């Protein structure tokens, strides 16, 4: 008798890791390397050592939470390893990572850029087309990730039946 293939534990771990790593991409690329915004830079502009350090504190708090979500994702991935008949598919896992990353971009973008106005993608321009593009990237990642998950699952089901 064929035991059904399981994908949910790996997908779940991937989505958590995607949210956490998506947060780190934002923090590392935008906050630290390009320095085009920081956590509260719309309210405390980064124009002095004092203000840069205040933003750095809130950046640290933000990274603490993205770190926690990443660790949860790692624990889920470790637990997925123990599940029998799990489908170890690269397409499935990468799809889940993008789904999580998209969720992060969409929710963080809507809340921090458009509702709370804590910062904008390119602070020097204020709220701009870049904030819309950030949300759009979230939607594209979610849809693309979801399609990759469905596709990997469909291929596995077809192979299982055959």
């Amino acid at each position: 008798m064929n035991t059904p293939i399981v994908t949910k534990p790996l997908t779940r771990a991937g989505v958590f890791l995607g949210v956490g790593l998506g947060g780190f991409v934002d923090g590392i690329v935008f906050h630290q390397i390009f320095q085009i915004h920081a956590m509260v830079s719309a309210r405390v502009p980064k124009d002095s050592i004092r203000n840069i350090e205040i933003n750095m504190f809130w950046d640290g708090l933000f990274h603490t939470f993205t770190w926690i979500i990443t660790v949860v994702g790692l624990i889920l991935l470790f637990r997925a390893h123990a599940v029998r008949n799990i489908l170890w598919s690269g397409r499935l896992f990468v799809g889940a990572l993008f789904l999580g990353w998209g969720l992060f971009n969409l929710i963080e973008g809507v809340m921090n850029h458009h509702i709370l106005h804590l910062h904008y993608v390119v602070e020097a321009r204020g709220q701009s087309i870049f904030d819309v593009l950030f949300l759009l990237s979230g939607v594209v990642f979610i849809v693309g990730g979801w399609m990759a998950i469905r596709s990997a699952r469909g291929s596995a089901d077809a192979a299982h039946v055959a």
Partner: protein
Amino acid sequence: MRTIIAAMFTFATSTGYGCTVCDTATGSAVRAGIFNGSFFITFIEVVSPFPVLGLALYLVDRCLPD
């Protein structure tokens, strides 16, 4: 418990020595800019996307195929 307290004390002491601006006027201004009357409001605002993300993760998890 003693180990945790000792580790926290060591960490706090070492970061205190390592901080180059903490004992300056800038350090005082930074602390005043963070730990003021709006600290808790800013805290809630900064972490607020995470409960929403948690809810989104829960909803996505329910929709995922087994």
